[in-house]
């Protein structure tokens, strides 16, 4: 008996060398939310597998997405720029953050991100979980720090319960904040536009103009705006007027490769109707302005996209074609997604 006790006490003491006691996760019914993957969409980002959306994870993520406390002076939330009615983008030329500070680039829409391989205009992030820290600490966006955020959330009280439901205990950690926001974003899937309904034979049909637009689109736009996401997720320099900020270099800022200079991720065209202005820093107020620019000819560059180079640095379009393409792009608008 004594021996047993002795061994037991040694064992307990050895355990005491560990820093934290092991807490059994409290069983809680937090079911995984199945992602409805639209037909023909590209494969999921591999990161989704390690962070499957759950009922309470998404609920927490949605609350954090709209939480202004994550900015230094409690004025800016994710949704301040990623506004649902604008397909989770906004309509400013460049993003506007804390104290009215103007960011480097145009706010990209948050939609169908579960299917993307790269995030942001320059693709500097490859997983959604590693993204939320960027706006939190960036001086032109939220100008805070993750521990400052956690301090505020701990004070609230209500968040502890939400973290417990989502993750099993009340611990508010950086990782859990990032993961829950990513889970929420994974559920923002837009695939219920007129285009989708036409494709799914749900009784809708293109108008004549939309049908003509779709044809021209397939000839003149689809080599980049391909797949059901309407982007091939490549980085290209398409000769748009450049952002003159010394901070801007496009994809080259990430890769250090001169051929990537002023290349940007081909944007999805889904819900483009709601996300004006267009271009990496909002160079174009309307879709028509974008098409006019391509028609008139883009700026030359050594690394100008080869497809544009082959076509004399332009995409020739007559006015009727522009009108038709815009009609077609508007069929990609998903009114339920933007809550209209």
């Amino acid at each position, binding site marked *: 008996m004594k021996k047993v*006790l002795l061994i037991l006490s040694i064992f307990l003491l050895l355990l005491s060398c560990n820093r934290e006691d092991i807490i059994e996760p409290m069983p809680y019914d937090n079911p995984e939310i199945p992602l409805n993957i639209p037909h023909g969409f590209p494969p999921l980002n591999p990161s989704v597998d390690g962070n499957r959306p759950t009922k309470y994870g998404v609920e927490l993520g949605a609350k954090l997405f709209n939480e202004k406390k994550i900015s230094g002076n409690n004025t800016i939330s994710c949704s301040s720029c990623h506004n649902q009615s604008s397909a989770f983008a906004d309509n400013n030329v460049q993003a506007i953050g804390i104290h009215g500070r103007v960011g480097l680039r145009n706010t990209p829409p948050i939609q169908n991100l579960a299917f993307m391989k790269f995030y942001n205009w320059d693709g500097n992030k490859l997983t959604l979980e590693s993204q939320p820290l960027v706006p939190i600490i960036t001086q032109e966006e939220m100008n805070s720090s993750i521990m400052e955020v956690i301090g505020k959330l701990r004070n609230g009280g209500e968040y502890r319960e939400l973290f417990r439901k989502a993750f099993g205990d009340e611990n508010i950690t950086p990782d859990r904040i990032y993961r829950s926001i990513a889970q929420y974003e994974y559920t923002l899937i837009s695939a219920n536009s007129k285009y989708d309904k036409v494709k799914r034979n749900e009784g809708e049909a293109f108008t004549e103009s939309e049908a003509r637009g779709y044809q021209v689109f397939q000839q003149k736009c689809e080599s980049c705006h391909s797949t059901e996401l309407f982007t091939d997720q490549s980085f290209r320099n398409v000769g748009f007027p450049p952002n003159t900020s010394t901070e801007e*270099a496009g994809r080259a800022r990430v*890769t250090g490769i001169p051929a990537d200079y002023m290349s940007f991720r081909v944007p999805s065209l889904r819900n483009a109707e709601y996300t004006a202005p267009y271009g990496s820093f909002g160079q174009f107020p309307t879709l028509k302005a974008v098409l006019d620019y391509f028609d008139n000819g883009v700026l030359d560059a050594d690394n100008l996209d080869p497809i544009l180079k082959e076509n004399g640095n332009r995409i020739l379009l007559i006015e009727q074609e522009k009108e038709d393409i815009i009609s077609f792009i508007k069929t990609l608008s998903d009114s339920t997604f933007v809550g209209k």
Partner: protein
Amino acid sequence: MIKIIIKGSILHQKTKNSKMKTSTKYSILFVAISALISCSKDNDNPVANNITLHFNNTFKNTTIVLGDAASSTATANTSAEGQIHHFSELKYVVSNIRLVKADGSEIPYNISDLDKGATVVDHSKAQTLDYVLTNIPVGEYRQFKFGLGVKPELNTLDEARFPNFYAQAGANDTEMHWEWGTGYRFTKIEGFYDSDHKELSIHTGSTVEGTNGEPDTYTQGVDAYRDITLTLPNNAVVGRNAPRITINADFDKLLSGKTNTITLGAGNATPSIHTAANMVLFVDNLGGNGSSDISGMFSVSSVEN
């Protein structure tokens, strides 16, 4: 923490077996003490002392004096390409410090803890030019290794894990956070070049993406971390005395390095250099290219025992 748990376990024993003999209690106490000892790390080397690293930032052999555009006191340097330049701000991160004993064994100094093993050398703050390594085991040391910057697996701006280094690097007068890359700036140099004092602003940092610490998974980006190896002119002897090692960081190498000779101009003198291959040219000059050059601008000028 540990004490409380020991008490708890003894009480636990008592409730279960109130007849427990004193000898058993002593044996438990003995186990407790030895367990306590086994919890601490460094008792194998009972005698230890400090080593002070002193960073002397120079242009060739002259210690740099900072100054604004029109400063008459700032140290001016002329590059191999004949460009005159001086600095107004000069900062860099040192981490991943390892000391190599005369017998070749390596003593890592808090290499996985940026709070205890990393610092920002800021030329405008004299106290940052001396970095004291504490509790170094007695012995003779012949070599000294460190990183210019932060190795990828720790370069995540993880405030929860390393609050002190995060705060030191992120202070308003330091600005060594690289927000969009969620990493640290490794070097930050501000200054002026040519006779008309054009602005130079050279920042370096990593943009590698992938699983931290697993280079096979890095799919994009630039790793600006550089591992430096410096052999000491004479052994540093840690014992009754605490040695002081003076490291020269010769910023003449920035433009006139062992690897690259650089001419400053509109394309590379200001932050558009983040962009490019240009940044790597500066990084290789400052921190070596990792193969033929493993010291970059650094050398050890003296070891005082």
